[in-house]
Structure formats: C-alpha cells, structure tokens
C-alpha cells in the first residue's frame, strides 16, 4: 500500500514537472492588444467601484474575495 502511494505521488510529481517545463506562454505579447482596450478594464473607475463594494458589504452578510483590499468586517 505504502509503495503504491509513493509510486502514485512520484507519477503526479513527474507529470506536474514535465507539464511545467513543456508549457510555453500561449498568448504572445503581440496578441494581447484587446486587454489594453478600456472596455476590458475591470478597475477603470476605482473610486466608483470601491463605493459600490461598500454598498454591498454594508447590507449583506457576505464579504471578501472582491479582488481588492476591500473585504469588510460585516460586524453587524
């Protein structure tokens, strides 16, 4: 049992390491022009976005994982 576990772990590590070494960045820099377009910006208006996050957290039990420093305590 212990041997099979070690073998499985070895196979997983081997697969992971070979995977890492063979995968190249598949979207080249010259193919990324769409991400520079303002319509693809998730934080175009930081003041306005931050305010709306607050509106949610002030009235909801959930908080966090907003992709920013916000997260709130949701104290009461």
């Amino acid at each position: 049992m212990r041997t099979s576990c070690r073998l499985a772990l070895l196979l997983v590590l081997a697969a992971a390491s070979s995977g890492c070494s063979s995968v190249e960045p598949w979207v080249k820099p010259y193919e990324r022009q769409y991400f520079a377009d303002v319509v693809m910006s998730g934080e175009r208006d930081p003041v306005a976005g931050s305010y709306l996050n607050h509106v949610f957290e002030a009235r909801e039990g959930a908080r966090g994982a907003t992709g920013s420093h916000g997260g709130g305590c949701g104290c009461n």
Partner: protein
Amino acid sequence: MIPRRIATTFALAGLALLAHGPAQSAVLPDDRADVLYHRYDGGGVTIDGPSVLLRKKFAEKYSVSANYYMDMVSSASIDVMTTASPYTEERTQGSLALDVLQGKTQYSVSYTLSDESDYTANTATFDVSQDIFGDLTTVSFGFSQGWDEVRKRDDNAFNETVDRRSYRFGLQQIVTPRLMAGLNYEVITDEGFLNNPYRSVRYLDDSSARGFSFQPELYPQTRTSNSVSLNARYYLPYRASLHGEYRYFTDTWGIDANTVSLGYTHPWGKRWILEAGYRWYDQSAADFYSDLFPRADAQNFLARDKELSTFTSHMLSFGATYELPSLGWDRLRRSTINLFYDHIIYDYADFRDITKEGAPGSEPLYGFEADVFRLFVSGWF
C-alpha cells in the same frame, strides 16, 4: 453611530481604491484625480457625500495616493423607527497608500482612518503581486490588520474594541487573446465587540400590549469567514466586452451566500462608453438570528439584524462615461464625466415589518428598494 458594518467596510473599501488591487499586473497605475458625489437612498436611509482621490507616480517606480471620503447619513430605517429615533450622522475617512514597483513585483502598503462620533476604525494593509509565466499570470497575496474603537452615545463608560484581520490570495490569468479569468480567495477574522450597541432583538411577551418586547442584541465575540470568487472578462468579436463573476461565501456564524453578476460594456461613438449589468445575491441567516425569539434571553447569542437574516437581492445597473473634449491644459491628458445608477431590490424571507399590524410573527415580511447614484469626473495627467 453609523452602523458599524458601514463604517468598517467603508474603511476597507477606501483602501481598495487607493492601492493597486492585488489581482493586477505589475504596472503602476496612471496619475489621476477623481472627484465623486455618491448617494444612496432606500429603506428610509439616505447617505450622500463626496470622495476625492489623487494619485501620482514618482520615478516610474513609486506611486502615492490619497483619498478623502465623507458620509452624511440621515436614517429613519425600519430598525430605527421601531426601537429608536431617526438620527443624522457624519463620518469622515482619510487614506494614504504607497505602491512600489520592482521588476515584475509590486508592493503596496496603505493606512486608513475612519472617524465618527461613536466609532473609530484604523486599517493597515500590505499586498504583493507578481507577474509570472510570460506575464500571462499574476499572483497576489495580501494582509490587512484593523483595530477599531466602539463607543456609545450617552454612555461615556462604554468603550469596546474590535480586532480585524484579512488574508487574501488572487490569481489572474490571460486564457486566450480575448479572455481573461481570475480567482480570489479571502479569509477574514474579527474579534471583539461585533454587534451594534444600539440594536435590539424582540421576543414574545404576553405582558406587552403588542405581544412582544425588546432586549439588546448579543453577538459572539469572534467571526471567521471564507470567500472564493471566480471572474471572467471576454472581448467580443466587435468592440465590446462581457464580464461575469460568481462568489461563494461561508462563515462561522452560519451564513452561506452566493453572488452572481453579469455585465456588458459597449463604446458608442468616439466619446461614450455605456454599461449595463445585473447582480443577484442570496444568503442564509446566521445561526443565532431570529425575527422573534420565544422568550427573553432565549439563547446565548441573539440577533435581529436584517443583514444577518435570510434574504435575496437583485440589482440592475446602468452607467455612462463621456470623454470630455480637450480643455487646452497641457498637463491634463484626458478627462471624463461619469454617471452610474443602480437600482437594488431587497426581499427578506424571515424579517418582518413590525411597523405593520399583525399578530406577533405574522406581520408582513419586509422588503425595500434602493437607488444608488455615482456622479464623478476623472482626469489623467
């Protein structure tokens, strides 16, 4: 006192706009200035005020930012109307942040102070993000520490504290030339006086004319939450984008919540950008929440805060950005004027409107609608 949830979340939200968000590539944000007027109107509560942000780069390596924010609150919410008197309150908040770019790594630190007559919140943050894998992937980690002081009007002896900590991880990935996706995970812990010193719960009381009475709410002294979100943004075959996000939340108070949001961004002509979106939110109640407890001191912890109840909300959003013609100022590269409007509908499943008639526990369920406006101008230098 502005509800503590509002004060502390604003403090943290303020930090979000100052420092470069962790799910960003290692590029310093542009120099800019924003002046915003915000207004929330719903459920008997009106909150409005200004927010001003200034951000400036130095030596292409450092970026400093400062934010001043103010809330002017006029509250006649259902909580206030049933157990207290309408009130007005002001809260001011100031934040400072520094971003440092070193190669493909960005470090961010910030500090925020939020102050009102009966609540003071301090928050410090540290974040680091790193571009890897040919800049296709951005990994980020962050930590926040908050320390708050809770006071109570008309009771000088009342003085409590809250310790808040946040640990977060983010991953942003370019998937295809048109698709970007991200994952965020955050653990938040609170310890201290976590309930509102003014809020009450109600319980059945045959000796009362209405059949119920009130006693102060009592929350646990600790709370830990976990939340994870997945998001994606897609550039359509024409110049416009779709974005979506899902978040799952769970905490040690027994609240589970799901959030789904979808949005569409569409330029119109050379100067306009129009946006529309929809957001759905649903949560279960905290274990110690009840609209009507069977008796006084019915259990160790007691809550009747509608934010801890079972409810669903729907939000429709509309936004317009107009790029202003050149003002002829050499240092102003571009400027915009923006108006965003959101309409939110809250439907509570176990929070009753006790301003209406009915036997205890059979009053109509509560619900309300809110309008949120954000009007602001932005300038890039």
